[in-house]
């Protein structure tokens, strides 16, 4: 059901705007509704995070935007890249956008590069396809880009194969590949999940630099709230394929209004608590797909009311630039 568009204020013209975005796999009653009713907007140079547990459908959002859904997946709604509708464009037109105006980096750098091609080749082909560069020019540009993402000794390393790089370096190569055409939008699907913590920090710093120096808008999907806190200016919280909450990171971290967010933050172990304190886990488990009537979080919410089970809460504004989907906002409860 279409919600009244309540997009958190992006400030200025948005690079990417999602409206009533939904993703569904399979057809008919046996289909799986993975994502529903997502509204989103990112402006130039902004970094927005999408947070959620495994199975909340966050990766599918990115894949659908790129037009890379599995063959039985269908996306609906509106996806506008700089005011141009790109949802369900034919492949040939998407190929011109992908890797050019809009690029994506993936979660597992160990398996995301073609094993039998040299790195140089994998970089140069993007330049050849999108900017029509010659082999030599592309080679030089690729080396420059590798140096930008801080790959040491890029001139020599460009002729190596992917398996000769470490995980962190492969992720940098992926980022380099994504940046070759100076995209307006960078989609990142859990880019640091598979990496060590120290390497994580470096990659996040790199991404922040890209947004700042190139003005690239970054939409980063992660289940790690720490990543969000250190990198993203705004964050959208996803549960069960629906948006629970959205707004500036600082707000959401410091004043979580949604029971889900509250639960997540409360579940984080705190060094301040005396040792032996039980962790406050959110009871139950996230289950993918299958939209039931009512709030997606109802089964696990500590403050669940009968209304929550029957009616799906709609995203409402709750203060400056903030939206929340919960029936119980505004009612006097001790958040």
């Amino acid at each position: 059901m279409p919600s009244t568009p309540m997009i958190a204020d992006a400030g200025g013209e948005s690079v990417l705007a999602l409206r009533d975005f939904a993703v569904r796999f399979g057809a008919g009653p046996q289909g799986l509704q993975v994502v529903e009713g997502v509204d989103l907007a990112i402006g130039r140079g902004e970094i927005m995070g999408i947070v959620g547990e495994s199975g909340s459908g966050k990766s599918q959002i990115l894949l659908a935007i790129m037009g890379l859904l599995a063959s039985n997946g269908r996306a609906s709604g509106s996806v506008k890249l700089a005011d141009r509708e790109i949802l369900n464009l034919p492949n040939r037109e998407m190929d011109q956008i992908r890797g050019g105006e809009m690029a994506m980096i993936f979660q597992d750098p160990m398996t995301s590069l073609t094993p039998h091609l040299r790195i140089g080749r994998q970089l140069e082909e993007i330049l050849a396809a999108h900017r029509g560069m010659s082999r030599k020019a592309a080679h030089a540009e690729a080396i420059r880009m590798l140096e930008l993402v801080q790959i040491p000794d890029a001139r020599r390393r460009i002729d190596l194969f992917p398996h000769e790089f470490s995980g962190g370096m492969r992720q940098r190569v992926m980022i380099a590949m994504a940046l070759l055409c100076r995209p307006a939008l960078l989609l990142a699907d859990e880019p640091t999940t598979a990496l060590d913590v120290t390497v994580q920090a470096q990659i996040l710093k790199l991404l922040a630099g890209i947004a700042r120096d190139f003005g690239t808008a970054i939409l980063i999907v992660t289940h790690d709230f720490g990543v969000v806190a250190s990198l993203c200016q705004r964050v959208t919280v996803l549960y069960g394929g629906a948006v629970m909450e959205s707004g500036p990171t600082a707000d959401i971290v410091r004043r979580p209004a949604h029971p889900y967010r509250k639960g997540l933050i409360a579940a984080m172990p705190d060094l301040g608590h005396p040792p032996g304190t039980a962790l406050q886990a959110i009871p139950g488990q996230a289950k993918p797909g299958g939209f039931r009537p009512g709030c997606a979080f109802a089964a696990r919410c500590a403050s669940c009311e009968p209304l929550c089970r029957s009616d799906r809460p709609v995203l409402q504004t709750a203060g400056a630039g903030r939206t929340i989907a919960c029936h119980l906002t505004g009612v006097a409860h001790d958040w």
Partner: protein
Amino acid sequence: MLSLCLRRLIQGVPTILALAVVTFFIMRLAPGGPFAGNRQLPKAVIANMERVFHLDEPIWQQFLRFLWNALQFDFGPSMTYRDYSVARLILEGAGPSFEIGLLAILLATVIGLALGVVSALRRNSWIDYGAGFICVLGVAVPIFVIGPVLQLLLGLKLGLLPVAGWGDDWRFRLLPVVVLAMPNICYIARLMRASMLEVLRTNYIRTARAKGIGMRLVLLRHALRAAVLPVVAYLGPATAITITGSVVIEQIFQLPGIGRYFHRRRAQPRLHAGDGCHVVLRHDRDRRQHADGYGAGHSRPPNPP
């Protein structure tokens, strides 16, 4: 790369040696002998013949002599075809045999790959199901049924192709090559389809598509090279199947190849021609296997993780 090839070839030598030993000793130890024919020869003649063929020497000496001669491609005179040496018989028969075999493997590879790729790309379409069904037939129906049936249909009833025989005309080759290639076409197509589907599901193909370089490049440069590996590895067994099948094909189509010696062979328990054939064919098979090793090595990054 060259060292890999060389190493593989050297690894094959002990196996060939082992085979030569087994061949030789089984032949010598089998009941009956080259002179155990219908006629009873006088003892003096037998003794003389034995001396001429070095059969009076100790066994190990005979073996060494056999090896030495084999290396010079001399397998002695044929017992069945007087006035012909085994080496000559092999050489004369080798032409048609190798030609048919090589053509069959080439055909199987080309058609199998094409069929497999198309089936994978148009998964669950009518092309896929059609190709799949033909492949089932190609595997389940033995070549010695397909062969005669096609001979009947295309040769006798429709008169389009010669039923049997050999000559310079390409028409003599068409049916034998196609029939010989059939089972391999089907195996390779199935293998390629499965391999292609698996490669298309990988993360790196997803990345390649995300780069917007176009589906054609993604397929040709990224997917195909990786997907073709199992097929290259299969070429060894494919050659073995082709060799085994060629014996039947040569009989059905009356081709003057090496295969017919296998058939007549059963009349005599001891025959040099057979030995010769085995060693030659084994070597060809070995070379094929090494060729795949080379091919596979070529398609792989030089230092696999």
